[in-house]
């Protein structure tokens, strides 16, 4: 029973376990890797994808998907730069503006999905092209520069912690509280598990779905700004394909593409860190540049495969215990799921 419980605990926290394992492996391959500074760098580089992945997690929890986040990051970065060209404003306002523009773009997605009832995949796929196309037109496909103050922000530390990481941490904290401690958060899980049942239960399903796309856009805008602050400039390919990293981070963190399963803390945070850790580790161990994408793809594949196995194993561990026991008690007493023998669920999984 204790081993079963330990197994459950291990499986439930697989993203964290993987994170530690990957760190240890790279540290064994190259001892310079084993350094707190490495972790700080990884966290800094992971922060903007992490912020976007948090928004993606909300969308995935409702069994939706948002392919437009990379383009939202780019378009909001370009739009904010346009505004900054004309008017000066305090740095704080710039951050708010970036997030607001992202939220607005998310609202467009949300409206199309809930009011016009078009599939999220199609809506956000179209938005991915449309937003980037519009941004290219605005910027005439040229590099856009930001004031130095923005770039300075990206390299500022507070008590040894980069500002980007602090922003990431704040986002995670807020969203984690929303998911676990507000009615809206719990309703997201309900909608993702069974939309029709949620409607029958009186959950405002459309409002919940609309809200997650707005959040996703908002966090993409914010993540885009964090990325700008680290790079200091916005090139036409800015954040291209970042939607896939965001999805990968969320899925690595245990979010299910079928909805209803996943969390931001520790899941998506671990996923985002894992993704970046692999990239940094590959640079460290000087893997052939051309091999890097394949190696990181293999690692992502492995992690997702492990997750599938994990889910299956979890189901088995949680279900088997309510099945029939042998007549002798040594067949293993029912664990925490222990319904009385003979009262068990009859339907097949």
């Amino acid at each position, binding site marked *: 029973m204790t081993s079963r419980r330990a197994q459950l605990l291990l499986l439930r926290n697989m993203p964290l376990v993987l994170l530690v394992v990957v760190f240890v492996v790279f540290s064994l391959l190259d001892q310079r890797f084993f350094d707190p500074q490495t972790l700080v760098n990884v966290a800094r580089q992971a922060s903007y994808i992490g912020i976007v992945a948090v928004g993606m997690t909300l969308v995935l929890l409702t069994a939706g998907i948002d392919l437009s986040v990379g383009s939202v990051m780019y378009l909001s970065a370009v739009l904010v730069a346009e505004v900054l060209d004309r008017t000066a404003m305090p740095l704080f306002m710039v951050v708010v503006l970036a997030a607001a523009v992202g939220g607005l773009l998310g609202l467009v997605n949300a409206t199309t999905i809930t009011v016009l009832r078009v599939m999220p995949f199609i809506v956000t796929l179209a938005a991915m092209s449309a937003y980037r196309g519009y941004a290219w037109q605005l910027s005439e496909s040229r590099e856009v520069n930001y004031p130095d103050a923005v770039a300075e922000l990206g390299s500022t530390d507070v008590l040894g912690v980069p500002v980007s990481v602090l922003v990431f941490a704040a986002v995670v904290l807020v969203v984690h*509280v929303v998911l676990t*401690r*507000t*009615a809206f958060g*719990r*309703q997201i*899980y*309900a909608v*993702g*598990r*069974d939309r029709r*049942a*949620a*409607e*029958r*239960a*009186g*959950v405002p399903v459309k409002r919940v779905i609309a809200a997650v796309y707005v959040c996703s856009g908002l966090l993409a805008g914010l993540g885009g700004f964090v990325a700008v602050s680290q790079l200091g400039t916005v090139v036409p390919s800015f954040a291209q394909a970042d939607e896939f990293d965001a999805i990968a981070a969320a899925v690595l963190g245990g979010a299910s593409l079928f909805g*209803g*399963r996943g969390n931001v803390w520790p899941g998506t945070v671990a996923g985002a860190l894992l993704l970046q850790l692999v990239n940094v580790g590959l640079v460290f161990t000087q893997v052939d540049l051309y091999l890097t994408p394949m190696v990181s793809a293999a690692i992502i594949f492995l992690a997702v495969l492990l997750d599938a196995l994990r889910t299956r194993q979890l189901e088995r561990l*949680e279900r*088997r215990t*309510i*099945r*029939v*026991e*042998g*007549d002798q008690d040594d*067949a*293993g007493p029912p664990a*925490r*799921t222990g*319904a009385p*023998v*003979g*009262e*068990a*669920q*009859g*339907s*097949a999984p």
Partner: protein
Amino acid sequence: MTADAPVLVVEGVSKEFFGVRVLRDVSLSLAPGRVLGLVGENGAGKSTLMNILGGILVPDGGSMRLDGEPYRPRGPRDAAALGVTFIHQELNVFSNLSITDNLFLTSYPRLRPLPLLAKRASRERARQLLREVGLDRSPDDLVETLAPGERQLVEIAKAISTDAKVVIFDEPTTSLTARETEKLFDLLRRLQARGTAIVYISHILADVRRVADEILVLRDGGLVGSGPVAEFPTDRMISLMVGRALEQLYPDRRAVPGDGVVLDVAHLSQPGVVADVSLQVHEGEVVGLFGLMGAGRTELARMVFGLDPYASGSVAVDGHRVPPLDPRAAIRRGAAFVTEDRRDEGLLMDFPVVDNLAMVALPRFGRGPAGVVDTRALVAAAREVGKSLRLKTASLERQPARSLSGGNQQKIVLGKWLLSQPRLFILDEPTRGVDVGAKYEVYTVVDDLAARGAGVLVISSELDELQGICDRILVLRRGEITGGFERGAFDAERILRAAFGEPARRASAQDVAEETT
């Protein structure tokens, strides 16, 4: 007595779908603390009436009053807020959330003025509600770890938490064990004592007679009888529902078991599930597998069909060994498996009847090297099957399976295997949630199958049903076969005793005996 002032009054309610009258001028009145038993065949209009009460449908005519006020719910949420809660047959719980989350999903106590949930307060309230419904679980437990009966208690707790004046139960006992059913009835009585009015819908007429104070019978959308329960013995309910006296509940057996062994299961074992199970099914034989829920019946069937693993033993269909975990091999050898969960496992709900019928037999209608499907032959064959099943559909090619009644859906599930002419049928609860008339037709189909030489293994929780249609009944208890009974030597009490593994209590033997007669 003030208790006589009705809490709910329905007057002349009607509903039409696409020009078809599904509900005609139905009236009822329900007093606090009373239980109204609502019976009728599938398609008689019960669901429509209840969906109107539950705010899911809007009536075309008639009026409703709740506590004297006009009652016009704008949706299920509105209905619940006004005091009418609907507990659906398919439970409305979210298995990925905790019990507390499920209870308060739309009415979480808040930590005012913050928008945060009052976790401690809601957990306390949840604990109190669980105590009221007699569910001994932590409010933090995920619903996916609960058995079906326990999940239902969560829904009832939710109804109590909203102080519902009227609670509608739609087929509440179909997935409950005998003990859970008793618990539910206890709870119904307690709800009654609190003054809650209850509408109880079920096909298990013995249950209805037990819990209801009044009976209301619907047929073809119209009210054909209502009054105190004492005036409605079971046979009267049945004849009102069917519109004629039903002389017999089971068709005469025409099939005579042969000598050929169609299914040979030898020493099947899987730790924690089944132990050393051996059984045989012969040509033209109908064998019943009886046992309490959780005795391992479904698990055994899944192993035989190659869906679940087993540690040792062997399975042979028609003399050919079938390897474990290979359902396609089982199908090739002529095995067919009709699952109890026809919604999730047996039917493509949005596809037309023909496509559903064709699913299994599709390869047989492939023509030429590319296996292009001969649609005309397929539709002709499907039509033939549809006719032999007496399917009530407007169009085999266009009507989606979802739009059919439960009984007709079940016939399609059987029919899709008929097209591939199997040797062995495994039927898991073939009549669950199916009304009396359709049950008879399902039994006829089972007999037909046997008459054509197929072997049939029927899993059922209704002992009467097995006694009515089987040549032999095997009893499974905790994954072991604890009894075998030949037709002519069926004895409900002895069979139950084998299933319980203890001297059968008189009461339970009588209950089952009463169930359908």
